[in-house]
């Protein structure tokens, strides 16, 4: 049993070592260097993060370490073992969770665990104890007999992680383990990762979330296949001394202030942060706001502590092609009356059989608002969203969109709606132009309009260079732009965005949000669902859903205030979200999540709430 261990040098400080690592792929006729000259040392017993924009080579590097790809150049070793020649030995000590977590959806939670225990040769006598521990840790005890396919996104990730942990790997490789996971599940995943590290496991994870990277001991930043930075996250921060500021005092025009600031030459980055705009300047000196004084008379500037994300932006922004979607507006949209209510939701409910996915909710959305719909996986967000788009009829209540009753004239209302789904709904085999043409004809634009809008889309979204490329081969960011262009072709009054930035890196998220802001300025109403609590700050107003009901509604400031407590005077929206879920956990929602220990018998009656909606 320990034969492999003898071949592993003990007390090696380096878990994974790579020198001059290179890997190329051929896509169509193009040769793409996924990785080039990567040299790195990953320390034993810590969490290291692989970060970088999409297509930077993160997944390729993880696969090379796991022995799933053969390198074209250079050498790589994990605990002194070569993944190419000693593949079996490497697999025996490595746990690898791919992006799609490798679960068998038609097997139950327990059956998945059994399978991976068999595959990793976990001795039978150790199993019951270990399964028990893993199920407790992942809070899946009550769901042992549920099919993996019927779990919510967060639960699937936790099960995927549990499956890679059955063999107690020395090296844990996680490819974007927290994408598409709500904040509660994300915290739970991190608790598990920290427990594993505490017991000696080495963890390497790729992530698009920089707040996660900041929690890691070491950072490896990749861009276009090259290592551009490695070291402790704190090291990044010294670079930013005296360059980070918050600007308060724009009141309800924070978003407009943000877009003004973003245009300034000496400002590298400007994002909405709580009630203020957070900026990173090009030089270590405060931003000059003289030319904004007329529009915003009462601005104040305060110096703030740099964050890791600032470092990421500062390093990567010069390297990445800049896309300014701020002008991505429909030319015909006029300045509009902001008082009109465009979406009215009154006592709306939706049943699936005897399961009430949405429980008599009411809210309304005003013209030109950016309105957020937040909630954990399975909270009823997507169901609500589909009802608003006229894709799913409500079981009861009134639903009016631009004054049209969706129950009687869904098709009429849909013509005024643009919809961009999480999966982008593009035709991968068609070119960019063909996709645009298809959506233009689907929205019944006439020939003249079609030409005008197509030119507009290719021009404003900077897609002209890719017009003839098939959309399936585009990088994620371009796909996202194309999907947005398709949703805007018919100049909708309302834009629905379902998790538009899931798995997208911070640079692309910024570009995307600048487009959203510009649209809202022009009077387009934007409804957005998101897992991203930071993005929720960008919304004018939002609602938080759990188990089909509204937990909270209002401006981000108002919702944050609900979580204020003596020991937490300045809660973030994420704190508020978790607090809200926690408050009702005792009464009904999430009882199964926060169930008692030994939840094997404690099968909760609220299980149905975990069903993805």
């Amino acid at each position: 049993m320990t034969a492999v261990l003898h071949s592993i040098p003990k007390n090696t400080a380096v878990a994974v070592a790579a020198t001059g690592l290179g890997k190329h792929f051929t896509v169509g006729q193009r040769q793409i260097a996924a990785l080039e000259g990567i040299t790195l040392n990953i320390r034993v017993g810590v969490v290291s993060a692989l970060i970088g924009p999409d297509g930077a080579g993160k997944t390729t590097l993880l696969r090379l370490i796991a022995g799933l790809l053969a390198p074209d150049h250079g050498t790589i070793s994990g605990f002194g073992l070569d993944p190419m020649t000693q593949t079996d030995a490497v697999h025996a000590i490595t746990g690898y969770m791919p992006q799609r977590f490798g679960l068998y959806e038609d097997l139950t939670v327990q059956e998945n665990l059994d399978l991976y225990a068999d595959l990793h040769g976990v001795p039978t006598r150790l199993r019951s104890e270990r399964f028990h521990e893993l199920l407790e840790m992942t809070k899946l005890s009550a769901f042992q007999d549920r099919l993996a396919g019927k779990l919510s996104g967060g639960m699937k990730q936790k099960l995927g992680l549990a499956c890679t942990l059955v063999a107690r790997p020395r090296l844990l490789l996680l490819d974007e383990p927290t994408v598409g996971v709500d904040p509660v599940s994300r915290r739970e995943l991190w608790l598990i990762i920290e427990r594993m590290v505490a017991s000696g496991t080495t963890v390497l994870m790729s992530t698009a979330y920089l707040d996660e990277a900041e929690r890691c001991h070491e950072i490896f930043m990749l861009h276009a296949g090259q290592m551009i930075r490695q070291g402790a996250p704190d090291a990044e921060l010294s670079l930013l001394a005296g360059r980070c500021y918050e600007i308060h005092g724009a009141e309800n025009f924070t978003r407009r202030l943000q877009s003004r600031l973003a245009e300034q030459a000496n400002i590298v980055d400007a994002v909405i942060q709580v009630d203020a705009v957070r900026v990173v300047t090009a030089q270590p000196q405060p931003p000059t706001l003289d030319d904004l004084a007329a529009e915003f008379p009462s601005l104040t500037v305060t110096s703030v502590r740099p964050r890791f994300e600032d470092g990421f932006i500062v390093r990567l922004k010069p390297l990445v092609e800049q896309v300014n979607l701020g002008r991505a507006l429909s030319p015909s949209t006029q300045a509009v009356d902001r008082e009109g209510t465009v979406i009215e939701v009154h006592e709306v409910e939706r049943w699936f059989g005897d399961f009430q996915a949405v429980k008599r909710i009411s809210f309304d959305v005003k013209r030109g608002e950016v309105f957020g719909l937040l909630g954990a996986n399975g909270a009823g967000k997507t169901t609500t969203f589909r009802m608003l788009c006229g894709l799913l009829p409500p079981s009861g209540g009134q639903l009016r969109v631009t004054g049209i009753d969706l129950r009687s004239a869904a098709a009429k209302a849909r013509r005024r709606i643009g919809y961009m789904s999480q999966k982008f709904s593009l035709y991968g085999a068609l070119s960019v132009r063909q996709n645009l043409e298809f959506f233009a004809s689907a929205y019944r634009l006439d020939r003249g309009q079609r030409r005008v809008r197509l030119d507009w889309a290719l021009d404003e979204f900077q897609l002209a260079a890719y017009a003839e490329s098939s959309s399936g081969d585009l990088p994620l960011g371009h796909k996202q732009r194309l999907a947005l262009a398709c949703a805007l072709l018919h100049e909708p009054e309302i834009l629905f965005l379902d998790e538009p930035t899931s798995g997208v890196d911070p640079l692309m998220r910024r570009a995307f949000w600048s487009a959203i802001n510009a649209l809202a300025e022009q009077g387009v109403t934007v409804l957005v669902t998101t897992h991203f609590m930071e993005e929720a700050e960008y919304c004018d107003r939002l609602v938080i859903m759990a188990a089909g009901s509204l937990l909270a509604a209002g401006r981000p400031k108002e919702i944050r205030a609900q979580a204020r407590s003596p020991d937490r005077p300045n809660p973030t929206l994420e704190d508020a979200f978790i607090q809200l879920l926690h408050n009702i956990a005792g009464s009904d929602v999430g009882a199964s999540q926060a169930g008692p220990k030994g939840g094997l018998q404690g099968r909760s009656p609220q299980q149905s709430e975990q069903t993805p909606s």
Partner: protein
Amino acid sequence: MNAEHSVPNDPSARRLRLSGLIRKEFLQIRRDLSSIAIAFLLPIVLLIIFGYGVSLDARHERVGLVAENPGPETADFFSGLQGSEYFQPVTFSDQRAAKAALNRRQISAIVRLRSDFSRQSLSGQSAPINVVVDGVDANTARLVSGYLQGVWAGWLQRRLDERAIESTQSVLMQQRIWFNPAVRSRDYLVPGLIAVIMTLIGALLTAMVVAREWDRGTLEALMATPVSVGEVLIGKLVPYYLLGMGGMALSIGMAIFLFEVPLRGSLWVLFVTGSLFLLAALGMGLFISIIAQNQFLSGQVAIITTFLPAFILSGFIFDIDSMPVAVQSFTYLIAARYFVAILQTVFLAGNVWEVIIPNALALALMALVFLTLAARRMPRRLG
């Protein structure tokens, strides 16, 4: 905590991995209604269609009878037709009316007895009959004209016997049909169908389920465990081999007990040759899914390269010897062809080793080739 990583090559670890993979596959089969349907429902449907619905025999064919000069002789000849289970005669007063009925496809043939039929037959001459057959359906046309000829010859013979006159035709054909004396098409269709059913389970189902692992990303997760390529393949082979043999047992049971097809050979021969055929089909299915790496494409390719040829080019319905030479040589590449030959022989003729052994060897060769190809082409890594 790292003190228990088992050695990947340890036989007990290997056993554990294999049994884990096989158990997983059975759980998936049990939960996936479509694979159960392909394995058990489809054989039943196909067997019932081919056993009851499709018949290549001509039975109760409607035949128009025209006697230009009706008399006892013509009535005697017609009564012979009336008594036959192959025909359902309809009498017409003249040839014109009969032709009109043939044009409207109400009858498939006309038997016309000329005005001199009675005289010729009484005088002991051969008494020719005039037969017009609707040749649109060539198969039926041939059968009908053959049957009519048989009826006519029989009638003539009887007449001669009755009158104790020696036959003017010195040579008379003595016809014996061996192996399937009743000439029931069902008796050779049903055994052949077993090959088609096993192709479905073996190649189509396997092609789909391996490709499914690509599509869903589970193969990537498997590759990162100590599982070897061989174990993944065996983990697929064993469950679908058992499923395929189950489908075969069901089909053979239905053939014998429901359709009363005689089984003149031995069950063990069927078992051995069936296993060889199934291995060839499984190997092909695995190979296809490894190349295609996508469920949809894999299914399409499997249907075109295994199921359709098993249907059309195996000799199951269409006789290989009557195909053009080019097509005939192509059939040697189709595993079902060898198995159909074995099945029809073992069911209807018995253990004829001269047929069974060469065909079984061909199957064994094909199984070896495809399984080797699958094992060779199965990627050990991504990309």
